[in-house]
């Protein structure tokens, strides 16, 4: 029997704080595969959108639906812009998010540490890692939960290039093995490298949603054109 293609359906998603609308009636039909990069100027609503997807906050209106039980935001993991690291060793930071640790998960943890360039640091105090290593650690911690959907909020904004390369490499691999990825960034070049499709937000509304290849060649809206060419600053 053929498995149906996973799909995410968002209708009329709205969110406001104290009467100020931050996201306004977003409706999208997104493929459950590949990397979706969310672009937009500061205050466009990117982080809010990601938090709504993850369930960290609840929307005022609208809904987010997926087309199968296995593929759900219940089974998602989030990586924050500022990595939140527990005051304990690298390994126990990774294993912390697992409820009952199985032997195979320990193996998986050390594999993840290898792929993210953290091998040998198992027992090191995670607080002593560099900013980039901390972000790699929080990605490893997200991946050990084997999420179907991975949400990343500007994970490489404040870190060194080596860590960025590690993270992008792992994200591409995960994406090709079937993990859906939402990725917020300000870095146009990074977006070009990663994106299968692009959501361009402005003032809480979707201005453009298209394939990456199309978006960067021929953005349909003026503001997206300006954004890509760097005229709308990121602040």
């Amino acid at each position, binding site marked *: 029997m053929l498995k149906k293609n996973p799909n995410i359906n968002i209708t009329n998603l709205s969110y406001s704080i104290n009467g100020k609308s931050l996201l306004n009636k977003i409706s999208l039909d997104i493929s459950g595969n590949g990397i979706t990069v969310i672009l937009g100027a500061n205050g466009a609503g990117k982080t809010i959108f990601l938090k709504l997807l993850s369930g960290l906050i609840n929307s005022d209106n609208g809904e987010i639906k997926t087309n199968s039980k296995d593929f759900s935001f219940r089974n*998602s*993991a989030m990586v924050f812009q500022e990595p939140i690291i527990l005051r304990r060793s690298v390994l126990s930071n990774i294993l912390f998010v697992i409820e009952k640790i199985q032997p195979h998960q320990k193996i998986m943890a050390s594999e993840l540490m290898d792929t993210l360039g953290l091998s040998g640091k198992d027992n090191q105090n995670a607080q002593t890692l560099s900013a980039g290593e901390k972000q790699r650690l929080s990605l490893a911690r997200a991946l050990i939960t084997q999420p179907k959907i991975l949400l990343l909020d500007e994970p490489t904004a404040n870190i060194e290039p080596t860590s960025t390369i590690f993270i992008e490499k792992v994200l591409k691999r995960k994406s090709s093995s079937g993990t859906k990825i939402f990725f917020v960034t300000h870095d146009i070049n990074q977006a070009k490298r990663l994106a299968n499709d692009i959501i361009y937000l402005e003032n809480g509304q979707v201005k453009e949603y298209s394939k990456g290849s199309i978006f960067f060649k021929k953005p349909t809206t003026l503001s997206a054109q300006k954004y890509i060419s760097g005229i709308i600053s990121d602040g």
Partner: protein
Amino acid sequence: MGQITNSFLEAFKLIFSFDPELIEILYLSFEITIIAVLISSFIGIPLGTVLACTRFYFRKAIISIFFALMGLPPVVVGLFVYLIFSRSGTLGWMGLLYSPTVMIIAQIILITPIICCLTFQTIESVHLKYREFFQSFHIGRLKAVKAYIIDSRFELITVILAGFGRSISEVGAIIIVGGNIDHLTRVMTTAIALETSKGNLSLAMGLGIILLLVAVFVNVAMIFIKNKFLNPSNQDL
């Protein structure tokens, strides 16, 4: 100037004389303080943690009350405890007035708000830092609270030491409920009060210097813990 020099001489004479009376006073001071601090921690740390990580009706009011209680004048606490444990008071039948026990009770009333509030501040800051992460990974409440406590364990030790410092230097409450009875309820601070009232200022200062040394020791311990364990550059954990 002469009197201050004399006081230091007096302090050292006292320390190195190993005067049994002094040792008795020191022993009682520490016994009362340590028991009071332990019990206050057993009450204050869980209470502060609950206040920091849960949301319920009257929570803010309770927090404000505890913060206000931190500034409670010890004499008021002393009188309150005296009235309760006086033989004509509610708990007078226990016959605890003028005993070390009632001094411990007064100390607990004084220190618990301090430990509770400082714990609240410590845990709340960790809670705010970790909250989104725990929520997004569906970490259960119990496991979360455990993580808050474990991850702020060294701050909590300094919280306990702060309670200790306050407790060992307290005089107003315990002199009322303890009565400063020789060989029974006399501690460092009440002995200082007595010597002052006898005009024996050098001896009072001498005892004060010993108290100061204890306080300095506690503070050094605090700094040591901070540097050794709270410094991110430290490798062993």
